[in-house]
């Protein structure tokens, strides 16, 4: 039930994170987006550089946009026994398995890095892509995180050391589709906000398809035989719109001190845990 209150000296919580991401080619300049009432120009060849906005479709509070944890049978993932056991050990503070704010063990709530693929699957905001001759940089608004995708023809390492964001290589599937493979991700991260698990054997495929000059689509496929009996598509052609070159990307940071203050004022009292 909603409640209307009239207050003097509004005690708002600072809106931080309290509510609780081919082969070598020459660098390409970022180009301006088309005017609003103008039909988009054709996609440039082998170019996904620019500042891209997925709109609210990238927020994904219940899990990936195409596979949210909402209790619907069509969104039930093909868990292995280990996958189900690991899922049940994860206590998200959103979705159908949501626990109270003070009881979650979501690592991102505690300001751990999202890692891959969660950087694509939760709070995916304005994203900048920079192409250089040997690698592609992806710069994310959430956490001010950047990733490197190697495009110098190397293979993924056979036994990669674990990293929060794994180890990524990219190739052009055709002139408008850039495919990134990622391995070696840290097992401590969750796949998404809903607590879907992954193992060190996880492989993530990201397919960036430039539809036209102003539109980029992202498809993300999860493949982890230890946790899932078959690959599943987390994002299916999530559209991004190209922003003007002078677009100023905001910052979106997780602050441990803000989180402590949030729990003291809101999270713990709301969870019946006192003001600690």
């Amino acid at each position, binding site marked *: *039930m*909603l*409640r*209307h*209150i*009239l*207050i*003097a*000296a*509004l*005690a*708002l*919580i600072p*809106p*931080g*994170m*309290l*509510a*609780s991401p081919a082969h070598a080619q020459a660098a390409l300049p970022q180009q301006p987006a088309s005017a609003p009432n103008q039909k988009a120009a054709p996609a440039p060849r082998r170019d996904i550089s620019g500042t891209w906005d997925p709109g*609210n*479709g990238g*927020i994904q*509070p219940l899990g990936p946009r195409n596979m949210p944890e909402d209790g619907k049978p069509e969104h039930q993932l093909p868990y292995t026994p280990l996958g189900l056991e690991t899922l049940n050990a994860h206590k998200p503070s959103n979705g159908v398995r949501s626990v109270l704010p003070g009881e979650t063990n979501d690592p991102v709530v505690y300001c751990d890095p999202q890692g891959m693929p969660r950087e694509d699957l939760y709070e995916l*905001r304005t994203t900048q892509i920079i192409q250089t001759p040997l690698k592609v940089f992806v710069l994310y*608004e959430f956490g001010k995180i950047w990733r490197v995708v190697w495009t110098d023809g190397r293979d993924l390492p056979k036994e990669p050391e674990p990293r929060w964001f794994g180890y990524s290589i990219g190739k052009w599937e055709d002139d408008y589709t850039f495919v990134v493979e990622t391995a070696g991700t840290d097992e401590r991260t969750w796949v998404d906000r809903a607590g879907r698990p992954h193992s060190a054997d996880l492989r993530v495929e990201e397919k960036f398809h430039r539809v036209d000059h102003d539109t980029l689509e992202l498809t993300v496929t999860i493949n982890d035989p230890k946790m899932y009996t078959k690959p599943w598509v987390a994002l299916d052609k999530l559209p991004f719109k190209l922003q003007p070159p002078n677009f100023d990307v*905001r*910052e*979106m940071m997780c602050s441990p001190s803000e989180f402590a203050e*949030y729990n003291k*004022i*809101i999270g713990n*009292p*709301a969870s*019946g845990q006192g003001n600690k």
Partner: protein
Amino acid sequence: MKDDKGNVVHWAAETSNPSDMVNLGWNKQSFKPGDEVTVTVEPVKNGLPIGRIEQVVLANGQILKARVVF
């Protein structure tokens, strides 16, 4: 706010993150201490004066929404 008996009750209310709030028209000058505003909140279930803001109506009638539509 004042409760039914006239006692002042302090509420704590949360919003979304800065990116969302700026998109919804909020800024650091939207409020200052002492402003009288009307706040609609979704309260927590245990009855404490805590909640999530749905919207704020400023003294001049301006409405600031606080919920993002996915």
